[in-house]
């Protein structure tokens, strides 16, 4: 098993790394004595009052920057709550659980979608309760667990020297545990394994320790056992952070140089940038410049997230905080950019690779007249979620709209929800697609992010098509291996690896076309494994594939917004399913409607919707026409909400429903 060998190889790399990291951290600490207990000691009881001179008390060796990473739902945000409470940064029992999950979508879905940073102050006491015990400035970043947001994790890790790798004591290592471990590992971070939820009756920390050993070569003695629910074991966490994670490297006496981690737009304050100060110090009134744009700004406000914005007037080497500098739009604040002292040239920091857009979809105003409102909402939201790409497009069915690129389907969903909840925009989105490449006989090549843009009858021969693939990691109890292998081969997958991570659980690796996993793969996977499967993927190269454009026609007129690109062998099935779905959701009209799916000029599926028989209100009693009129006006409004192609009115639900059509069943 070549894959297993690769895993072992990487595990050796890890163990080397872990050893190096821990020895480094101890030497950097200059406090080698063994710390037996620690205690909550809020240094700054009144939040919002941290002075710059206090920050000066935390040179790099008294600073620790770490992320909390884990598989979905293993308890990152809850652990963050406990650490914030333990340090008095938030008060226990005040505020909602998962304090850092601030967005409405996060609260409703119970997931983190955006990494959040918080600064804590912590007195690292010894057994003697020494009041001179050293104090530390700890910067915590809570990250999302879902695969779509691994970009957020990478970004967060760039500001850290270490990570708490949280693993659910009952569920053990899962797909995103592996993915996130490697992200941290490849960034050369010290990793502290935290086996959480040990209060659960099915918790099996020993088994998890074994998995960690086997998969990542992590020494079982390094694992901390905690329950973020009951508080058990939490007292070990921050001492371990201080002991095992190195302090930020960086030159205190160099001109200021910092990494732009995140930016968002605030109605009152303007653009707010989150930064990690790598070298030097940043003070209010300083002139700074962007390495990417060359533009210079004056620092108007600077401070820390404690956990809310807390002005300090200064940030020192190694510290993480925010800067407000009069940038007009978040477009000026490019995430991953290096900000530095103006009028000096600096080596830009490595930054991070740009977000990769896996899924594209058209976004249109649900109410045709609302284009301006949608445009405004998208502009505002992209200020706070820079990982979405946006270009204008038009459709015959939906009018003016936008083609947006997303990190994944959940990201797309979350983006929609935020548009609706935070900006009041109502949107219709088109069937999500992946970026394909088509090559023609004349050697020309196009990348297709919108199937409608691909000519149905191009008049030239298609020489080859390519589609993006992913490497998927699936972890399942071994009794489900059979059905999962079936599913993956139905989805045109190629098996790369099949190993066992412990006595009960198998790890499968597959190369799968991205298109096959974006819509319903995960749901189906969960369905056939009673919810036990976990799944992660990373993007991989393009592969050649037999692709066709599938058009949907209503009364002979193609509906551009419903076009899709599918694998030739699946065209028939998908076409049939789309046509059936549409028949269900298009309402009868005063004439017959034919619904067809076609490849080029060949019709591959067809349904007819017979004409409406009656829609009459006989009663119009006692001259009281107001009620009838209201009804007719409602009907008129209903028509207005529909989208029209030719003479056919298409209800918005039809577009929503098409999104759910599987690609592969």
């Amino acid at each position: 098993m070549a894959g297993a060998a690769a895993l072992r190889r990487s595990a050796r790399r890890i163990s080397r790394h872990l050893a190096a990291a821990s020895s480094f951290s101890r030497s950097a600490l200059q406090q080698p004595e063994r710390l037996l207990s620690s205690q909550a000691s809020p240094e700054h009881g009144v939040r919002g009052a941290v002075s710059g001179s206090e920050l000066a008390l935390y040179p790099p060796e008294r600073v620790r920057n770490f992320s909390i990473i884990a598989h979905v739902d293993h308890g990152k945000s809850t652990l963050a709550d406990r650490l914030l409470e333990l340090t008095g940064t938030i008060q226990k029992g005040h505020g909602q659980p998962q304090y850092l999950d601030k967005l409405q979508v996060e609260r409703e879905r119970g997931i983190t979608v955006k990494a959040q940073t918080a600064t804590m102050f912590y007195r690292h006491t010894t057994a003697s309760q020494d009041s001179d015990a050293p104090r530390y400035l700890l910067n915590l970043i809570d990250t999302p667990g879902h695969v779509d947001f691994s970009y957020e994790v990478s970004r967060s890790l760039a500001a850290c020297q270490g990570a708490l790798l949280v693993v659910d004591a009952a569920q053990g290592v899962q797909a995103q545990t592996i993915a996130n471990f490697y992200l941290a590992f490849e960034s050369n971070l010290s990793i502290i394994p935290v086996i959480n939820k040990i209060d659960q009756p099915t918790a099996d920390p020993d088994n998890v320790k074994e998995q960690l050993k086997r998969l990542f070569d992590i020494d079982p003695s390094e694992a901390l056992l905690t329950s973020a629910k009951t508080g058990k074991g939490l007292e070990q966490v921050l001492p371990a952070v201080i002991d095992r994670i190195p302090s930020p490297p960086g030159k205190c006496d160099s001109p200021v140089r910092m990494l732009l981690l995140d930016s968002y737009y605030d109605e009152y304050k303007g653009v707010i940038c989150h930064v990690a100060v790598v070298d030097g110090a940043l003070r209010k009134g300083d002139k700074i410049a962007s390495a990417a744009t060359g533009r210079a700004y004056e620092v108007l406000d600077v401070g820390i997230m404690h956990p809310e914005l807390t002005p300090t007037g200064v940030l020192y080497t190694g510290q993480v905080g925010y800067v407000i500098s009069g940038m007009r739009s978040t477009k000026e604040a490019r995430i991953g950019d290096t900000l530095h002292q103006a009028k000096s040239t600096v080596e830009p920091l490595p930054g991070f690779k740009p977000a990769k857009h896996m899924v594209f979809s058209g976004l249109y105003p649900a109410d045709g007249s609302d284009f301006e409102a949608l445009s405004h909402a998208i502009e505002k939201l992209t200020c706070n979620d820079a990982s979405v790409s946006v270009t204008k497009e038009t459709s015959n069915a939906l009018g003016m709209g936008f083609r947006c690129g997303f990190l994944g389907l959940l990201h797309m969903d979350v983006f929609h929800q935020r548009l609706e909840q935070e900006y009041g925009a109502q949107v219709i989105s088109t069937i999500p697609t992946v970026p394909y490449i088509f090559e023609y006989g004349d050697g020309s090549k196009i990348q297709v992010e919108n199937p409608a843009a691909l000519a149905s009858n191009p008049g030239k021969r298609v020489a080859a098509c390519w589609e993006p693939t992913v490497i998927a990691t699936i972890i399942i109890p071994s009794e489900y291996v059979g059905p999962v292998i079936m599913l993956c081969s139905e989805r045109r997958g190629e098996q790369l690896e099949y190993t066992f991570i412990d006595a009960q659980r198998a790890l499968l690796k597959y190369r799968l076309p991205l298109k096959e996993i974006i819509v319903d793969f995960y749901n189906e996977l969960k369905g056939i494994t009673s919810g036990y499967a976990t799944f992660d993927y990373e993007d991989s190269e393009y592969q050649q594939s037999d692709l066709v454009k599938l058009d949907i026609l209503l009364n002979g007129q193609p509906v551009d917004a419903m076009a899709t690109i599918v694998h030739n062998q699946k065209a028939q099935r998908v076409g049939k399913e789309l046509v059936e779905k549409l028949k269900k959701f298009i309402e009868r009209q005063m004439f017959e409607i034919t619904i067809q799916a076609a490849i080029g000029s060949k019709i591959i599926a067809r349904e007819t919707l017979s004409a409406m028989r009656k829609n009459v209100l006989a009663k119009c009693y006692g001259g009281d026409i107001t009620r009838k009129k209201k009804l007719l006006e409602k009907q008129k409004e209903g028509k207005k909400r529909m989208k029209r192609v030719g003479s056919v009115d298409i209800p918005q639900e039809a577009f929503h429903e098409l999104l759910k059509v599987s690609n592969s069943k």
Partner: protein
Amino acid sequence: MHRLAIPLVSHLPSRKPAPIRRRPQDARRHASSTAATYSSTPPSPSLSPLPPASAYVHLPFCRKRCHYCDFPIVALGSAAPPRGQGADDPRIVDYVRLLLREVAATRPVSDDGVPLETVFFGGGTPSLVPPRLVAAVLDALRGRFGLSACPEVSIEMDPGTFDAARLAELVGVGVNRVSLGVQAFQEDLLRACGRAHGVKEVHEALGILTSCEGLQNWSMDLISSLPNQTQEMWEESLRCTVDARPTHVSVYDLQIEQGTKFGQMYTPGVFPLPSDTESASFYKIASKHLSEAGYNHYEISSYCKPGYECKHNLTYWQNRPFYAFGLGSASYINGVRYSRPKRMKEYAEWVQELEDGRWIHKCRSSDMKDLAMDVVMLSLRTARGLDLQSFSKSFGKSLTLSLCNVFKPFVESGLVIAMDSKRRALPHIDFELDLQNEGDFGSRVAFIRLSDPEGFLLSNELISLAFGIISP
């Protein structure tokens, strides 16, 4: 026992006709107001500042509520003596007293007294109201507004609520048109609807009506698409109807309203209700049978022998003003529609306000768009259809053109019929040609109407399309 403060009885003998003060233009208007006189063009119905010549009076009492009904009614319960000539139900007496107060407190729109041409007693079951109380209301109307020489005075009656004497009494006080609520000729269907009568009462009532000397004009109500109704049953009902030879028939397609018993029990289009296709076929069958029996299908749900259109209802279809009195009733005066409170207590309070002069018509009079929608909605319900020239005069040529344009595909498919000034159907090509030379549009097309039965059946769709043009 309640004593009436107003001496009702004293009104009874006063049946001398009110003075007729008809102006010449009124005469023209009335001549053209029936659908029978199609060729003359009525004045723009929407904008004429004419005073009302019609009055609707709501008499809300029923023995019990039918399962499909969501009107403002007062159920008296089975204890109420159906034909009691003795003690009047105090609830009815109290209500009529309230009605009379409302009539007395309502100022006639014009001072030079345009008399009422039509009065309609609707319900409820107005035939439950003792004739002398009906007479009292009629007298009050006559006293307040005047009645024309031969007004149309209609009353709704239900089988089992009257005998020959009671009918004669009503005719004696001036009622000259009866609308009989039969609904169906099948015992099971009547019972399932919660009707307070059976088939036997229907035949009795028909006997009484047809043998009443003074009554020449009567109508019958039928409901199609009832639960478990079959095509055979429907055809039987239509046969029985034709056999009874009413001058007018109203055919209502059952609507399932929220909050009614049927609303809880049934879903439209789902068994035991007929499917849309079946219920459309019921509609077509009615149109065919009744037309063959010599009835004109002059409005979506109304049929009549030539010359027997319900003049009162034509007031509605032609968007002319009318008074209304009583619980929940809707009036249309000086361009303003007003619906009275649907609860008795609130209605009584409202009458008090009216008397005290405290009630001010919140003058949210309809704007031009509203008016245009009313005209389109009402006229397209009729066989007469929409008079394009008069519509154009009132609302402008460009709106008229847009309206015709949105109907173009349906003129072609036959749901909408374009007609010339002599009301002859035009081929759709002529309609399109006319539309193309915008300059003198109307050289050929003078009316558009919905076809019978297909266009009528889709009237909601077609009218709401027009709404989308008038008020986008």
